[in-house]
């Protein structure tokens, strides 16, 4: 009986020679048991529900359909006005609103500038005294 250390020191070729010299005894009925195990596994695999391969494709199809519904031209809302003159008046009104709101912003900027200038004015006054 070889020790583990001796076996570890053997080269691959020596190990191969030893393996062919002594054929390992095959246990009785091993082949039959292997066949039975393989057959049982095949039956179990057939009975197990397979993951449906169509699910990712179906998901993609649903998402693509939803995207198409949202983005396809011609599915937009209906024009509020049939008369271009009324539409023009509404555009003008919208620009008036935008303009008014911008003017509010401009007024606030002016007020902020005046507030920001106060410390400078105070310092200048103090310096001149």
């Amino acid at each position: 009986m070889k020790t583990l250390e001796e076996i570890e020191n053997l080269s691959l070729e020596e190990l191969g020679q030893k393996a062919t010299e002594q054929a390992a005894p095959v246990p009785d009925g091993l082949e039959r048991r292997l066949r039975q195990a393989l057959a049982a596994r095949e039956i179990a695999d057939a009975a197990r529900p397979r993951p449906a391969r169509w699910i990712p494709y179906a998901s993609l199809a649903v998402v693509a359909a939803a995207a198409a519904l949202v983005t396809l031209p011609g599915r937009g809302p209906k024009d509020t006005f049939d008369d271009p003159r009324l539409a023009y008046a509404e555009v003008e009104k919208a620009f008036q609103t935008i303009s008014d709101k911008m003017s509010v912003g401009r007024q606030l900027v002016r007020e902020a500038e005046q507030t920001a200038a106060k410390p400078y004015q105070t310092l200048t006054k103090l310096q001149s005294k």
Partner: protein
Amino acid sequence: MKRIVILFAALLLTVTAFAQNGKSLYQKYSDAENVSAVYISPAMFRLIGQLPDMEVGQNNVNLTPVIRSLTGLYILNSENASINASLRSDAERFIQSGRYELLMEAKDGGETVRMYTVGNERTIEGFVLLTAEPDEVTFICLDGSMPRKEFESLIADEMQK
């Protein structure tokens, strides 16, 4: 299976984010009670033709000279307290997902006004005005084309007047 569900959810979220635009906001809120809604389509803008200089009142900021073309206009004005918060948050989500940049924010007497633009270095392709008051929310979304340089110098000049 779990991976498929996650993939499906991610794709659905992408589509939902994609769906947030002026049109979807308009379709969601235009029929609600106490909401006035206006939509002007690209076809109607073609009928209107080129915009002449509009009168917007003396001393007011006039954007019309820098507008090269308009292709869509959505206006929603809600005085319905039950949907104001939802309209505002949907509009903000649309602004974020559409990569709009904040142009101006003004808060005055309980009213918040925000203006956003979207486009590239040379052209502004979209403009959004969102105003929120305690009992009223207004959303105006303009699609069109404005040269960025001209637009920005107009705003800068107006601020210095």
